[in-house]
Every structure is written in structure tokens, then in C-alpha cells.
């Protein structure tokens, strides 16, 4: 029954979140001494910008998560904060909150990931499908090794190469940033052009590597789909090639590919994070990088949690939607 499936799937989601939060909580405390405490102490000692506030925050932290509190209480406090969407303050950018920092960076990342992945998936699957189609000229098969190489290169390494060639040597695209340094972001054409201009190289890095992956996956899928009996009958019926390719071949190959996309979500997100680092692109990945450099523990923890949550949510949504796309699945539940 669809309901049992729903419950089981949702249960998995909760389990993942639970485990993620627990890991995030336990690991810093496994080391002798609390690294966060130490960082706070260092900040207080070196005297950051707002010294009294930092001291107050350090004190508040000690009260909530300090060594005098039993661990289980610290754990519950942690959950309490999270459920109130309180991810803490940034140590490096005090008094900015982690939530706010992530919030301002998230749209950049979502835009980059979303658009690049969509384009890569669309172009890649079409290429892959065509490569499996028998009437395609043999010469095009030469593309396959190229695609294999493209799929084996991590996005961000491709990014470095692209920066060198297209931003340093030929100054077609900017080398870093999400927008012109110092400019104000408005909803006007100039800003949009600027943003797209800056997003081009990061996007291309992700797209080229992505096309390699999806083309190969789709090709594999199509090869087995084309061996099915309904393709033979479709041909026997005298249907024209294009119709068979799109509606009998690709349409059936697309479904498992969407599952593959879901499984690869972790890779894609990791790749995007690293691409942002290379391009100093103002998204969540770059924020994570900066936080690691400045030992901004709350930001690191916050971003990690958001990452896990986002991916778990995306997988949940995809699992719930799948029965809608594939007519067979809905009825199997009967």
C-alpha cells in the first residue's frame, strides 16, 4: 500500500536527520577538550571586534554546552536549538548568525546546482540516447571515450583548467566571484547579465563533466531498452524512427535515470561545493571553505547539517514523486 511505503520512507528520512545531528554533536566532543570552547577562548583572548559580546556568547555557550553540564543535557539543548532553527553565531563574523550566513549564500548555490544539473542532464541523456541508436553514423561513436574522460574528471579540476584558459589567457569570463566586486545586487538587466557572466565558468565546469556521466548512463540504459520486445513490435508496426526513439526508447530509459540522478545527488553537491571554492563563488560551498580556514565551528556544523537535510529531503521528494511518473509503480502497490 502506498501508505506503508510513505511511512517507511519518511521513517528513513527521520533516521538520517537523527544520525546526522548526533554525529555532528558527538564528534567534536570525542576529542579531549571541546574545540569550540577552545576557539571561543582564543577569540576572547585575542579580542575580536566586539569583545564584550564575544565574552557574553562564550559564557552563554559554556552554560548550555559546557563541561559542567551532563552530556545528555547538552544533547537535548542542541536539539532544542536546532528545532528552533537556531544554528548559533558565526565566530568569525560575529554578530552574524549562522542561519543568516547560510541563507544569503544558499540562493547562489541552488541556482548554480539547479541550472547546471538540469542542462547537463538534458543534453547528456539526449547524447547518450543517440549514441545507442543503431542508425547513428559510426564515426560519432568516437565521442564515447571523450565522454568517459569527461565523466572521470572532478568538476573543480575542470574548473581550474577552464579558469586558466578562458579567464586568464583569454579574458572571456571572470575568474572569480558571483558578481562584480562591490556592486549592489538589484533585479535589473545589468545585474542579471553580470551574475550570468560570473556563473558561466562554474556552470560550464559542472555541465561538461555532468554531460559525460549522463550520456554514458543513458547510453547503457538505452542499449538494454532497445533490446526489449516492445521496440521490436514498434518497428514491426511501421512506426517511424523518431517516434520509436523518443517515446518507446528514451521515455522508458528516463525513469531509471532519474533514480540514478537521485543516487548521485551527493556527488553533485560535493562537486558544486568544490567548484565554488575554486571560483570563490558566494555560495554555501565557499562559505564552508572560509569557515574551515577560520575555524568557525558553528558555521561548519550549520552548513553540514543543512547539506544533509537538503539532500535527504530531495531524496524523499524524489522517492515520493517516482510513482507519479512511472505508471507501473502506482499500481504495483495495489
Amino acid at each position: 500500500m502506498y501508505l506503508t511505503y510513505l511511512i517507511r520512507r519518511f521513517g528513513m528520512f527521520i533516521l538520517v536527520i537523527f544520525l546526522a545531528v548526533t554525529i555532528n554533536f558527538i564528534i567534536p566532543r570525542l576529542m579531549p577538550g571541546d574545540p569550540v570552547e577552545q576557539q571561543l577562548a582564543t577569540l576572547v583572548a585575542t579580542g575580536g571586534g566586539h569583545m564584550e559580546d564575544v565574552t557574553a556568547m562564550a559564557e552563554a555557550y559554556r552554560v548550555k554546552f559546557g563541561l559542567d553540564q551532563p552530556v545528555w543535557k547538552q544533547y537535548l539543548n542542541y536539539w532544542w536549538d536546532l528545532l528552533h532553527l537556531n544554528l548559533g553565531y558565526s565566530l568569525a563574523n560575529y554578530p552574524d548568525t549562522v542561519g543568516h550566513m547560510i541563507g544569503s549564500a544558499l540562493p547562489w548555490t541552488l541556482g548554480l546546482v539547479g541550472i547546471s544539473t538540469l542542462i547537463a542532464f538534458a543534453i547528456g541523456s539526449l547524447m547518450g540516447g543517440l549514441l545507442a541508436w543503431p542508425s547513428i553514423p559510426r564515426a560519432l561513436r568516437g565521442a564515447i571515450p571523450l565522454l568517459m574522460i569527461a565523466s572521470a574528471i572532478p568538476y573543480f579540476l575542470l574548473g581550474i583548467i577552464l579558469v586558466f584558459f578562458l579567464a586568464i589567457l583569454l579574458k572571456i569570463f571572470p575568474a572569480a566571484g558571483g558578481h562584480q566586486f562591490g556592486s549592489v545586487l538589484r533585479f535589473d538587466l545589468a545585474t542579471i547579465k553580470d551574475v550570468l557572466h560570473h556563473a558561466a565558468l562554474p556552470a560550464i565546469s559542472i555541465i561538461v563533466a555532468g554531460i559525460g556521466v549522463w550520456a554514458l548512463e543513458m547510453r547503457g540504459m538505452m542499449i538494454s531498452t532497445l533490446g526489449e520486445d516492445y521496440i521490436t513490435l514498434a518497428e514491426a508496426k511501421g512506426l517511424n524512427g523518431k517516434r520509436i526513439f523518443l517515446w518507446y526508447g528514451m521515455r522508458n530509459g528516463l525513469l531509471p535515470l532519474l533514480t540514478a540522478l537521485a543516487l548521485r545527488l551527493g556527488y553533485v553537491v560535493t562537486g558544486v561545493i568544490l567548484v565554488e571554492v575554486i571560483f570563490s563563488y558566494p555560495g554555501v560551498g565557499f562559505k564552508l571553505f572560509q569557515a574551515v580556514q577560520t575555524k568557525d565551528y558553528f558555521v561548519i556544523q550549520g552548513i553540514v547539517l543543512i547539506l544533509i537535510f537538503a539532500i535527504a529531503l530531495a531524496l524523499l521528494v524524489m522517492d515520493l514523486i517516482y510513482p507519479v511518473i512511472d505508471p507501473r509503480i502506482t499500481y504495483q502497490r495495489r
Partner: protein
Amino acid sequence: MNSDILRVQDLRVYYDTPAGPVKAVDGVSFPLKQGGRLGLVGESGSGKSTTALAIMRLIKPPGRVEGGQILLGDQDLLKLSDEAMRKLRFDQISLIPQGAMNSLNPVMRIKQQIIDIVNSHDGDYSEAKLNESIGQLLLTVGLRPEVATMYPHELSGGMKQRVCIAMAITLRPKVIIADEPTSALDVVVQRQVMETLGKVQDDLGAAVILVGHDMGLMAQFVDYIGVMYAGKLVEIAPVEEIFREPQHPYTQLLISSIPSLESKRLFKGIPGVAPSLLNPPSGCSFHPRCPQVMGHCSSQVPNLKEINPGRWVSCHLHGV
């Protein structure tokens, strides 16, 4: 001769393998009268399905049609362009596939799959007319019109097979090739499907080639039976005569291996195994297993000869 709607002459279909060509169909010839029913029987690997596919020109690499002619009326199908053949499929000759289980596109409704046939053949009908025609079409094969809106997995095996029959007659073809249409079905459904096929064929006046290995089924349905062995036709005869007086030793063994409801006897099989199509036995392919083998059977290939009007045998026993 003139009432023959289809004539296959010396058809050869070879499969290229690293070890050499496998002669799946090696010189098959037979006529099909207008409105007639021909059954092609043989063991697995005898070449009967390959023959059926070859008539539709659906042989894919590494298989290829090595030679022969397939005459539909005056046209040699093997000489047509790809596009001309495409238009002809299902319009003049249809196929009811083996294994209807997987022959329907799982993500498309039945209605759309039938509409696809119409649209691919210069059909230009209004939506309303199409719906009506499809409803009628489904009724003729004994299905409720609502089936049109369903997906293949919602149908039973028998229903799917009948949908395939419906699709095969959509454009009122002249020849219907049914490739083991009932192999995967239970006996009761088998009978229903065959009845439907028979009725449909009568209505259309189309000719049917029924490919299979169930002699009992053949006996109830076809006018003529062609027996295939190792890629060749060894005997063609009207159905009663082939059961009463089979002429070719292989046919004789086949018929006698059918259990009888009347008399009790020991089961009889056919000794030996089916020959390799890569290296067929020299001379007559059946000679290693033939109980009536003679000296020159291993060196000379027998030809298909019409020993009586409407009876062909390929055997040295009949002086060929």
C-alpha cells in the same frame, strides 16, 4: 498461382558469428493463398520465427538476409527501400508477436499505441472518429472499449495478446503473421485467443501464417502445415493429409510423438539432438537422426518437390 497473396522463394537468413555464418534459414520457399492459413511448425531453432521476422524485414545485425525473394503480390519486399517497407508494415502485413507480455510499451496507454499505428501510416482522423474506431476495434477482439485507456500492466496475458491482435488488424492488412501467439498462455485463454484470431481473419479475408510448435493447435486452426527442420522446409501439406499420411521421416516422427487420447502406447520421442546450424550435416540435414536413412542421404541435398498437387516433400525417399 494467381490467388497467392504471398510467395517466399529460396529465402536465406544467415547470422554472422565469430565462428562463421549460422544458417538460420537456408533456402525456404512456400506460397500463401489469399485468405489461407499456413502453419509453420518445427523445433526451437528450426528457423520458423526467423522466417516470420524476415518476411517483415525485421532481421537485425548480426543477422542478414542472404538471398531469396519475398513476393507480396508483384512486389519483392526484399528490394523495397526502408521507407517503403516501413509504410507497408501493418498496412499490408502485420505481426502478432510472441510474448505479448513485453511487446506493449509499458508507459503508454493502449489507445495511444494504436493511434501511433494510424499516425505512422498517413492516417488523418479526427479525435472523435479515432476513439470510436478504437472502441470498435477492441470489441471485435472481445475486449471492452475501456481497455483503451489502460496501461499494459493492468491487463492479463490473454487481454494483452488480444490487444496485439487488435493492433495487427487496425489497418486491415492482407497478411497476418502470428508468431507463437499463445505460447505463454494457459489452455483456456489459448482457445479464446485462437478463436478471436480466426474470427478476425475471416472478417478481414486476410491470410495468416501461424508459427508454432504445438501440432495440436495447428491441427485446429490451419489449412496447410509447413514443417521446418534445421532452417529448411522439409514438408508442406494440407493439414488432414499431413496427420494421416506424413511423407517425410521427420514429420512422421513428429506426428507419432503426439500422445493419443484413443490408444495407450509408449511415448515416442525423436532420437538425437537438433543439428548445429553453423556446421549442418552434409547432404540432408536430417540424415543423422533419420530411421529411413539411405546411402546417398549424407552426400546429396534433397530439394522440395511437389509430389502431388498441394503436397511438397524434401526427401530422397521420394526420388528427389
